[in-house]
């Protein structure tokens, strides 16, 4: 199928236009249209693996069109094993997030669904772009709908959280843009052609000092997004204030844009800087701090949603640790863990959202013994918690284990600290489970909470299945990422002195 990627990329945008065309008062039609288009996008994206050849090096299904020839920017998209996984994750999570807001839709639903659809196109564009200019465009486009989703439909401090998220990430991304431009000029200086084509820019040889500057410019953009310690302060605000769908999309997809940026751009384009010992040490140290610090903060949280938000800091720390282990095992583990985190954290945020809709509280101390009244909820929550904590047979274990084995191969201390992080992770997650689900029913108010509805069960079902499927049989994921990761590792090794 010739333009499958473009189809997947622009289907949500078509949905956005369709939603805008419907009058505001017809909110049921708007809701239906939005859900239809996101489902259609997901189904279309399922066709991608059918045309994708695993193990073939380089990008596949590449589409190239002239866009702004005067500056050398093209419409250039393509996919490899890494982006394939993230694209599939994005379409799935977007469709589920769209669906989970079914009952909250109302007169103000038009803008809400329009923004969700715009966000989906933005995220997919980030994962598909092979042109730096196009990438930057999508990167920033993602911020706009998220501002409105948090700012209009969020919690009490939504206004503050929304602008903090927006300004913080934009500040990072303008420096990333400067880094891209520096790269663009360095290439033009050597080859006499101005281009933003990633596959061409990779050929440039940079002066080591310039390469380090560019690395840090890109680092600012990606690190804020991940977020790496100490750039994480926007995250708890944004996640806690966002409505459920917003939190799910933020945690599952938007954070991956940062880690994806490191893998797709920083490592292949700037291999020498990425392998510079002090830079690697700095990156790993920041990752380890994030792992431990995030976990410790989680232990002290009294707010259910905030705890899950901070757990992302810790888990994304594993992902960046895997990236800067700079070997096959670390990088593949990192990509797979990004998918896993997308699944498990989406589950956790969805479940918190379900509880909040019923009880209008997120204080952990308001709950206890919920397993008695909501057995299905408790079961799914247990799966989510175990998946997030990295229990064997569930998806989280696969990623954590691969990352740690990659880190162990480089430095035993890194792996050691990582293991401590894992233990702390299990501690705060299981403790959360114990305080909310186990024990006697503490409050009368919780006695009549209804269990998961059919719709809610259907929403969590695919994620639960995936958590088990990846945990039991992760081979397809490893096969998908092995070839692109190998290319990156070879690229790094080729410049090793």
């Amino acid at each position, binding site marked *: 199928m010739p333009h499958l990627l473009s189809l997947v990329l622009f289907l949500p945008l078509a949905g956005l236009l369709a939603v805008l065309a419907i009058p*505001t008062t017809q909110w049921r039609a708007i809701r239906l249209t939005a859900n239809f288009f996101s489902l259609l996008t997901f189904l279309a994206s399922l066709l991608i693996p059918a045309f994708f050849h695993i193990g073939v090096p380089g990008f596949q299904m590449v589409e190239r069109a002239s*866009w*702004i*020839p*005067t*500056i050398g920017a093209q419409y250039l998209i393509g996919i490899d094993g890494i982006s394939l996984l993230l694209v599939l994750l994005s379409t799935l999570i977007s469709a589920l997030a769209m669906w989970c807001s079914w009952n909250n839709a109302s007169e103000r639903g038009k*803008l809400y669904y329009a923004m969700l659809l715009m966000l989906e196109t933005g995220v997919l564009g980030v994962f598909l772009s092979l042109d730096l200019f196009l990438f*930057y*465009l999508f990167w*920033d*486009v993602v*911020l*706009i709908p998220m*501002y*409105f989703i948090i*700012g*209009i439909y969020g919690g009490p401090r*939504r*206004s503050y959280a*929304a*602008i903090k998220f*927006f*300004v913080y990430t*934009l*500040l990072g991304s*303008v*420096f990333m*843009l*400067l880094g891209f*431009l*520096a790269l663009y*000029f360095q290439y033009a200086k050597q080859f006499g052609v101005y281009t933003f084509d990633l596959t061409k820019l990779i050929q440039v040889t940079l002066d080591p000092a310039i390469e380090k500057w560019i690395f840090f410019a890109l680092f600012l953009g990606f690190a804020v997004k991940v977020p790496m310690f100490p750039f994480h302060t926007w995250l708890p605000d944004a996640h806690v204030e966002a409505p459920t769908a917003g939190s799910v999309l933020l945690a599952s997809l938007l954070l991956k844009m940062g880690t994806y940026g490191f893998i797709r751009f920083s490592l292949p384009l700037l291999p020498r800087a990425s392998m510079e010992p002090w830079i690697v040490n700095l990156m790993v140290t920041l990752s380890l701090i994030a792992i431990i610090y995030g976990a410790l903060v989680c232990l002290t949280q009294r707010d259910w949603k905030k705890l899950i938000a901070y757990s992302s800091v810790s888990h994304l720390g594993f992902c960046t640790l895997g990236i800067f282990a700079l070997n096959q095992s670390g990088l593949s583990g990192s990509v797979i863990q990004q998918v896993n985190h997308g699944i498990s954290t989406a589950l956790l945020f969805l479940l918190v959202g379900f509880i909040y809709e019923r009880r209008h509280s997120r204080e952990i101390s308001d709950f206890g013994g919920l397993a008695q009244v909501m057995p299905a909820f408790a079961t799914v929550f247990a799966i989510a918690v175990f998946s997030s904590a990295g229990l064997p047979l569930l998806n989280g274990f696969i990623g954590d284990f691969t990352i740690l084995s990659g880190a162990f191969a480089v430095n035993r201390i890194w792996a050691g600290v990582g293991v401590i992080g894992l233990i702390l992770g299990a501690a705060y997650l299981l403790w959360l489970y114990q305080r909310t689900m186990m024990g006697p029913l503490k409050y009368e108010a919780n006695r009549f909470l209804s269990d998961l509805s059919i719709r809610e069960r259907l929403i969590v079902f695919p994620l639960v299945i995936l958590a088990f499927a990846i945990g039991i049989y992760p081979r397809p994921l490893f096969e998908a990422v092995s070839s692109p990761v190998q290319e990156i590792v070879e690229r790094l090794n080729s410049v090793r002195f």
Partner: protein
Amino acid sequence: MAPFSYNATDHLALLPPILMALFACAIMLLDVLSPSAESSRRGTVFFSLLGMTFVAYSLALQIRAVTHAPGFAIPAFQGSLIIDALSLFTNGLVWFSTVILLLCAYRYLEIAHEHRSEFYALAFFAECGMYFMAGAVDLIALFVGLETSALAFYILVGFTRANRQSNEAALKYLLLGAMASGFVAYGFSVLYGISGSTQLSEVSKAVVRRGSADPFVILAVVTIAVGLLFKIAGVPFHTWAPDAYDGAPTPVTAHIAVASKVAGFAVLIRLLLGSLASARPIWAPILAVTAVASLTVGSIAALTQDRLKRFFAYSSIAHAGYILLGFLADSDDGRRGILIYVFIYALMNLGAFAFLISLRRPGSAADRHTPGDLIGDLRGLSKRHPLQAALFVVLLLSLSGLPPTAGFLAKYFIFIALINTGHITLAVIAAAYVAVSLYFYFRLVREMYLLEPRPAEQHTVEPLASSLGIRLALGTTAGLTLLIGLYPEPLLRLAFLVTGGVP
């Protein structure tokens, strides 16, 4: 001195300002002759638009002539006027701004009970002055152009006679503007002194001959730079701008913010990048300081404003800072960056002001302020007027420089120019202020979308003072902002064409 002659080329060069002046006079005559009823004033709007059509035609004739001319430039009047890419680019934008002014002003003036024909005549006179700012290559013609447009603007700013603020603004603008003109006139006289000619080509030779260490050259360049920086409201010569912007009738504010600034930048380009290019060591530091100071003061002051027009005054000071950065990059990229920025700046500001004009509603006399003056007046607008609010958001995104809007490209080309010429520090500063500008522009979005309307306002749902003209202006500018952001190729080609032709 050659004997006076008037040939076809001279006529072509003079046709647009002749039309402008004739229409201005005709408007005033018609006003005297016709009974002064409301209906006839609406008629004036159509008559003015007819005039603008003629002007557009005359400019189109010039464009056609220039494309066949050697070097894409047609000198006229023994080398005191020129038709070239820069003059046409500037005149096109000034024309566009004037049309938007005509489209948006009548509703506003009716509400203020000041809908009089002189307004339209003055708009034509101002455009006439700006035509000479854009096309003059002679010190005297240039100065006359500067003053003609300035005089028209002084009156326009004070056009709402009953409004004290408007009067105060006019006086401030007049006093500080006169001082700026004094600086420019002084600088011009020194240039005449060292070159013995008023023609820019001769001046240029004299400046090259004397070098940039010559005290007279320094004196002339510094005074001219200061005077022109007053015109475009660069910090620290910006103090008139917030008051004049705030006090002037909003359509006039838009015209000052756009047309006057566009013409001012055309003069800056013509002088600093043209005939005074060899004096770069003198003016570059002045511009660098002004640019960074404008970015800083504009951005920080905009954070704390409560009044919409003061807010936009400071924000456009910050934009001037970005444009000035383009002058520091001594390359084609820099010149291109300036032009692209100026074009996009004009577009998005006109849209934003068209929106502000529609906010004006008749206020009771007891009110300390008229509705539509405060940022708080935007509250809850997304619920009452979703389409207008959404278009305004597009413009605000563009003003803060986010893709996929045109404003991003404007900043992008400034960054490109700075990085390519090694001004990394300036590029980093400029980039950091993008985030600040996002913060202050999104204060307006926050009012419109995030905050709940005050209880008192939920009942009095007043419609916007919208008119067909305003809707047209807002729709066109916001649409173009988005379109250029997604497909900028035609604009970029235009910019490449224009930068080929700056003398």
